[in-house]
């Protein structure tokens, strides 16, 4: 089945089985390996992507469901060669260890800050509660999202 969608700012067309897992289309057919597959069952958030700006799990979507949608993966966050403020904050706060959860965490944080630009730490934990990290203990991740909220806020008021 031919499926067309808007991926990371570009019109994209793939010819894949309609029932193929979207995460496999992204990783294997489009070679965008930033999106990870951890559990394949909705539990870990490693496969998080943004569909029309909102978090979705690409391990629980068929390829066909991408038709006509605007999809953002971690590869599509940087603009003009500059990383997104959330990515910058993750780097500066040491919120990355093995990195397996990071693409999903970053995208979940981007969606959260879009809806709630000034979240409390509790709201950050709740916003990221669909994303598991087996390395960090989460503290630095929450620190990073707090810092990112500050960066984005300052960017806007400038």
């Amino acid at each position, binding site marked *: 089945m031919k499926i067309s969608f808007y991926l990371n700012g570009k019109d994209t067309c793939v010819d894949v089985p309609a029932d193929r897992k979207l995460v496999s289309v992204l990783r294997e057919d489009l070679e965008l390996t930033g999106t990870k597959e951890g559990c394949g069952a909705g539990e870990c958030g490693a496969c998080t992507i943004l569909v029309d700006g909102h978090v979705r799990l690409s391990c629980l979507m068929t390829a066909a469901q991408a038709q006509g949608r605007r999809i953002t993966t971690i590869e599509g966050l940087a603009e003009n060669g500059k990383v997104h403020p959330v990515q910058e904050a993750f780097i500066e706060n040491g919120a990355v260890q093995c990195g397996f959860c990071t693409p999903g965490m970053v995208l979940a944080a981007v969606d959260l800050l879009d809806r709630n630009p000034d979240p409390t730490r509790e709201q950050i934990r709740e916003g990221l*509660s669909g994303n598991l990290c087996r390395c960090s203990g989460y503290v630095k991740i929450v620190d990073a999202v707090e810092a990112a909220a500050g960066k984005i806020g300052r960017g806007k008021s400038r």
Partner: protein
Amino acid sequence: MREVILPGSIEELWRCLDDKPQASVYAGGTDLLVKMYNGLFDPEALICLDRIEELKEVGEQGGSIRIGACATHSGLLEDPLVRKRLPALWKAIGGIGSPPVRNMGTIGGNICTASPAGDTLPPLYAMKAEVELLSREGSRRVPIPEFITGPGATCLKRAEILSAVWVKKPEGYNLHHFEKVGLRSALACSVVSMAALLRLRPEGIVEKAALAWGSVAPTVFRCPEAEEALAGKPLCAESLSKAAELVRDGVSPISDLRADADYRRAVAGNLLLRLVDIADEGKGR
């Protein structure tokens, strides 16, 4: 290869079902695709309801609220009608899975999965909700306890979908409570859950109670004996303990990897005891 069809309207859906009568419909896929991608389910074709806007509408009609089957949990959490008028359901939905699961999963999917642990079910039973079933021939309304015939089983017919759930606004209740006990607070299936609606007189006497439990029986458990035992009594540890005994006698829980039957039986009663504190805190009003 399995076809996946994305009809954009109900009219188009009927044409797809004529073409592919063996197809399985799905909405968010958070139950169905987990099973399919893990080899536990092998449908001939799939029809995704995600693009049918008519099935996502929430509205008020007479004394009832009609919730479209394909409304996502996130959409319902933001809906003022659901939050203000159906607070017990709203609380239950807020505890489902995680943000991405709530962005994808729908109330119709939760009902049709008919899991004993489905979190929308205890409040829907306590509020005597009815489901609206739609086919090319027309629609019919069925009380939810008749719709769900067993764990994972419903009376949905071939080429029929769940189009909406109707909930009467629970007038007169001034305490609306839902609590779920799981192994952790996010991404946790209920070990035991309870929805409770109470009409309390100002002096603290229970006038009426509607109670329902999840995960303690093959389908949602109601306990008219406990509701009757509470009616006319003050909301206090003594009356609740008596009612809790009736609940523990009535449940038929199983043991599984999350909890054993005795634990579920004990907790089913204990959740009731908590209502004193809930009323004191003025929470749930």
